[in-house]
């Protein structure tokens, strides 16, 4: 598949303050791509560079082969955008805002627009200033989707939405992806990224630290085995076995938590020599991965800085 969003070496600073540094990634056509990072990591800067609201210091960003800065007008015909902090004319109603932005886009399908409004249970008759944060978010999301854009760029899209609307919005994202259109969404809500996205990029302090399929990023080769024994066991008997990346004792020496990569055969055979009470294995959640990349320990981050 061709890359609909192609970012190479994108760098932006605000005077002496770091924005993003040498950010590169691609989003394939029809893909739902999640962009993860904590506050201030550079997610919004990246998105605003894609939307030509900021001008890059270095590097290039392309959408559908068009340069995001030079060809911004053409790109905006292809893109729907939901900013992270909704700020609109407070005296206009939701309906007026949607109609205004619809006109600026050259018109939208009114039936589809009404459908989106109904699905998110938005009351378009109220003024923007009277909306709750969640309802403001709904206006922003509806306007981003109402013209059926080829690429949807969403900055923290579910912030302020209640669980029901989050769920409904997730279905909308899924539909966009199934129609062959692309979604680039930033978030720090890992569960929604895990649920909606096929690939994910993690950004930390302005730099991409990991990009890959959600499954790959979750690093299924690396998992944990927890064994509880009836008696104390020496950790040394396990930590040099094939497939063991790390071992630590728990439960006063009665338990072992092993970080694994590869086959567990050697571990199972070694454990069989002791009285085993229980044994469990689990994959790391995206949350675990995410936290690992954000450990204060720079070494961990450096090790993780690779594209799978």
């Amino acid at each position, binding site marked *: 598949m061709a890359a609909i969003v192609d970012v190479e070496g994108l760098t932006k600073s605000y005077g002496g303050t770091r924005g993003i540094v040498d950010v590169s990634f691609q989003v394939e056509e029809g893909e739902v791509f999640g962009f993860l990072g904590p506050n201030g990591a550079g997610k919004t800067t990246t998105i*605003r560079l894609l*939307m*030509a*609201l*900021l*001008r890059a210091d270095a590097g290039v960003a392309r959408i559908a082969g068009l340069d995001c800065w030079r060809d911004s*007008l*053409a790109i*905006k*015909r292809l*893109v729907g*955008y939901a*900013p992270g*902090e909704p*700020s*609109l*004319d*407070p005296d206009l*109603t*939701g*309906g*007026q805002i*949607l*109609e*205004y*932005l619809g*006109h*600026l*886009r*050259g018109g939208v399908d*009114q039936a589809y*627009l*009404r459908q989106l*409004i109904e699905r998110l249970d938005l*009351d*378009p*008759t109220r003024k923007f*200033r009277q909306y709750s944060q969640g309802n403001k978010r709904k206006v*922003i999301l509806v*306007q981003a989707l109402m013209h059926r854009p080829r690429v949807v760029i969403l900055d923290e899209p579910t912030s302020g939405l209640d669980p029901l609307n989050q769920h409904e919005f997730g279905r909308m994202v899924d539909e966009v992806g199934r129609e062959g259109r692309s979604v680039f969404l930033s978030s720090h809500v890992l569960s929604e990224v895990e649920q909606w996205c096929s690939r994910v990029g993690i950004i930390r302090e302005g730099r991409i630290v990991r990009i890959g399929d959600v499954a790959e990023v979750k690093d299924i080769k690396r998992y944990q085995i927890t064994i509880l024994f009836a008696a104390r066991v020496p950790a040394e008997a396990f930590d040099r076995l094939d497939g063991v990346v790390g071992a630590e004792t728990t439960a006063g020496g009665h338990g072992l938590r092993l970080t694994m990569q590869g086959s567990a055969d050697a571990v199972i055979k070694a454990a069989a020599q002791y009285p085993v009470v229980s044994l469990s294995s689990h994959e790391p959640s995206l949350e675990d991965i995410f936290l690992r990349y954000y450990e204060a320990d720079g070494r961990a981050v450096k090790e993780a800085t690779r594209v799978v």
Partner: protein
Amino acid sequence: MWFSSIFFRTLHSYHVAIAGWGIGMGLVVLQPLAAASTVVGTAAGRASLTQLASAFAFNAAPVALGTVAGYATWKVGVFMLIMAIWPLLAASRTLRGEEERGSLEVLLSVPRTRARVALEKLAAMWTALLAMAALIGLIVFVGSQSFNPGFGVGDALLFGLDLALVCAVFGGLALLISQFTVDRRRAAGWTATLLLVFVVLDSVHRLFPGTEGLSRLSPVYYYNLSKPLVTSYGTSLGGMLVLLALTLVLSGAAVWLFARRDVGGVVPLPEWLRLPRRAAPRGRALPVDDLSLRGVYRRSLAMIAVPTFWWTVGIAGFAAFMVAGVAQVEKTISGLATTGSVIKTVVEKVGGGNVQTNATLLSAIFALLPVLLMAFAVTQVSRWSADEEEGRLELVLSTPQSRQRVLLGRFAALTTATVLIGVLTLAASAVAAAAVGLKLNGGNLAAATLGIIPMGLLVAAIGYLASGWLRATVDTGLVSLLTAIWFFISLVGPELRWPDAILRLSAFYYYGAPLVQGLQVTSVLGLVVLSALALAAGSWRFAGKDIAR
């Protein structure tokens, strides 16, 4: 210390305003003090000044005009009330503005009562006004020592205090009004309108005898009861106490209402004062079919419509009022023809003609029209900058509209509004002149009223250009300062016989005196070309800059 309490934190945020307004207004008073000796130095000058003052009665009551302090007090007159703009804006921002930004909720989560939060903020504003008053007083006293002004430091400080008190009244009024409005702009707009109304109301009794009762309704009347720099006239303790009482009543009412209403909400008006609700049923909310939503220009026009209406009322109303006022003093003006005084020269320089004509004096007064339109332009520059800074342009710029188109659409709407103000000012002046039987050259009247349009556009274009680099508050401050400097040059330049090269630095030089001299085509074209260049540069800059958040 500055972050130890709400009071100090708020006061700290006012330090630039204290210095700017204090020094600026001090210099405004110092200028006529410096120029006074050339005006009141001769018997003929003093005589003509007395006659002239009655014609300019809208500005201030003439008291001891033959003295340096009397001349300066009369000269600065109503212009000093421009300082009321600061408390008006500060008070609108202080509670309502913070509610809009959401920062007040955090502040009200600390263990302090709402009343205390409001009072600490109010106290900071009053302290700032007192600091401005002290600065003005000290600058006026120290700066005037070489002119033998005849007043002491106490008188100068009382002069500042009187000004601070009337400003505090308008601050309290803005704070009270902001309890009823959903945003700070409306509160500031209503208070500014009332300020204008009160200024006019105060001047009525000086123009039309027997109307003093009407003028007493205006706080400005009580401000003018004191003329502390004129020691023979002195200070009206009663007048100051009325201003203090008004400040306390208005501010107290505002704090009382604030402590009882919903945060983020407004004090509900009585049913008969409320606008009828026009909420459309949800199912029929779309399409809205509103013509104003069909493009950036139309939307910008709709955004600017309400302020344009009020500014038109103010500017056209002022022009019509002055035309009627000049007709009242027609005889006085004609008396000036025989004096050959310095004042005659001054009027002729500012007014640009011969004092024998009504047009000359009216021309001097009409010099304020471009200032008013430029002030309107400044408010719109501020709105443009703030819209960008607060992210309101972000979604518009995410649609397939080029940045230039968005900027030029907004500017085109502003141009439409300024043209409308100019045309309606012409119509109002012409109707007023016809109504009172004042003979004016129609072509020149058109040149004087329509000539203000390029002045407003020039300020707007410079503001749009500067917004490419500056934050909204700095941008607004810059164009305000530029307008003030230009006006200052045009006001004092002719009087102090400054070289032509300096006078040419002011945009008002190119406005000239069209009511007397007719349309100066080259000058007007020059202003238009300069505006176009500034707008083109602003558009180029906007197309290439980072959009702020």
